[in-house]
């Protein structure tokens, strides 16, 4: 299912944060959105998930404007995991995952077999089944993030949007989350994730969209678009690009202007 952004502008209280962005994300793509703080990348993601009303332009999910669809209908096709959600500390992982069935359940309807199956699948896919009965508050950061991903997966979305799912996690847990997203993507899910870490973006995604001042600075496969001068224009720091000796993928690094450590 295609996700198409058409001339989208978003803002808060008169401040324009996303300015006339157009993109097209194909079914099955794995996309990273990068950019400096305040560039509008999170706002763009929220706009794509109808969490923020556009000032102009629109977002199409398949053929239809996302705002013309019922919000529950959207939730059955598209899931978004906001940055560091803080609710539900007293819920068990299983209870949290069940809440992802909300858009599929009628107002008085009891849980159906597809609900049970979806929850089991989501917990297995996110690899949280082994601690399903533990409460969210008792989990480590990485486990908790996977539990939230299980919630999103229980929606059985075609498109999964995530806002910095790896922030505040150590390297091992970052890797774990990225591998999980990779696996979901291989199984056919469209994944769009805002990422801070350019190395993760380069290594784990097929396409990187860089946002600067609410506009697209560059857009393409990391191998092609991660060039020093392009990244410097986005992040306003001198950059250097190394090459991963194993995969040949680019590894962008900021250069220390004063030559720290080089004498």
């Amino acid at each position, binding site marked *: 299912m295609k996700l198409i952004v058409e001339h989208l502008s978003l803002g808060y209280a008169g401040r324009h944060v996303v300015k006339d962005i157009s993109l097209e994300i194909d079914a099955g793509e794995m996309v990273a959105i990068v950019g400096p703080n305040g560039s509008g990348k999170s706002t763009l993601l929220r706009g794509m998930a109808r969490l923020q009303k556009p000032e102009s332009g629109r977002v199409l999910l398949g053929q239809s404007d996302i705002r013309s669809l019922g919000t529950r209908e959207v939730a059955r096709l598209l899931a978004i995991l906001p940055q560091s959600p803080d609710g539900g500390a007293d819920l068990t992982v299983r*209870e949290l995952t069940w809440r992802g069935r909300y858009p599929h359940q009628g107002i008085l309807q009891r849980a159906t077999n597809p609900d049970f199956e979806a929850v089991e699948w989501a917990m297995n896919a996110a690899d949280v089944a082994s601690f399903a009965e533990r409460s969210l508050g008792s989990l480590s950061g990485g486990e908790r993030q996977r539990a939230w991903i299980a919630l999103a997966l229980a929606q059985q979305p075609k498109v999964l949007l995530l806002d910095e799912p790896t922030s505040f996690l150590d390297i091992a847990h970052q890797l774990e989350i990225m591998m999980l997203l990779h696996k979901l993507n291989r199984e056919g899910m469209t994944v769009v994730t805002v990422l801070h870490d350019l190395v993760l973006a380069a290594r784990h995604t097929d396409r990187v969209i860089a946002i600067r001042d609410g506009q697209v600075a560059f857009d393409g496969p990391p191998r092609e678009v991660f060039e020093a001068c392009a990244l410097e224009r986005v992040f306003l720091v001198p950059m250097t690009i190394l090459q991963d000796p194993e995969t040949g993928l680019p590894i962008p690094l900021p250069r220390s202007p004063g030559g720290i450590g080089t004498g």
Partner: protein
Amino acid sequence: MAAPHAAQSGALVRRAARRGLPRPVAIVGLALLLLLIVGFLSLMYGAVNLGPGEVWSGLTSDSDLFARNVVWKIRYPRLVDGMLVGAALAVSGSLLQGVTRNPLADPTILGITAAAGLASAIIIVINPQAPQWGIAMTCVAGGLVGAGLLFIIAWRGAVSPVRLALAGVALSAFFGALIVALLSSSRTFLQTSLGFLAGGLYGSEWRDFDAAVPYIVPGVLVAFLLSGRLNALALGDDVAAGLGVSTDRTRLLILAVCGLLTAAAVSIAGLVGFVGLVCPHLARFSVGSDNRYLVPVSALYGALLVTAADLAARLVIAPSEIPMGIFTAAVGAPFLLYLVKFRG
């Protein structure tokens, strides 16, 4: 909290747990039984004590005129009124705690009780002979205005539980001051206003019930229907919106239901405090935080608490009465202290 563990061992409960649902059955059964017992006790005991047989004949026949009058005209309507008040306040409290994601929210703290009470005081001062349905309607209008103000002042657009609590406390103090001002300057001030300010069921009758039921029954039903959305809202606004909940509309709806329920309770019993605060917490201990269970179980606990408090209120200094709200506060305030100290 031994009951939840006992419940957990049941096969039914285990099955429920496997399905991702909390373990409600035994505790709810126990509470229902307790409500039945306390309810029956409150039909038996009072300024005049009746035997179980007399209560039964009073409930079912005209053969014993005295028992009939005491049970059917005085105690039974008062019992039912009390259960209604307790359920309405507790549901209102559980909705507010859910929607604000704040364990200290309740209709009193957020000023909805005071708004309804002010409306009630106004109508009683303007027209001391106002019929009960008029008082109930005015209370509901006041409660809705209070809830609407809360929404407009603290909540529209950006969500901030702190702002909400501050606005609630301010509204509560403001309306409370107006109530006292009105009552102390009014011609109709009587000792009965103590019962109104502290909350009590003295003189509650079927007409109080008739006037409040049209608000409370739909209010509670809508509350049950909203519990799924409340579950989503508990995860935070963005997550809820992502799950397909219209957050602002849901919040407004929930606040309106709270206004309705609280006001209808105020029209019967005046400014009863703490029921809406305590009962949702008790319910959370029993059945977890799934609002589909929390809301109805809170209602049950509310009915139980008010029934027990009213029995105590009638017995302690019989034949006089202490306002029932004193007893709900006497249970509620220490509980609040416990929450503050041990549960943050």
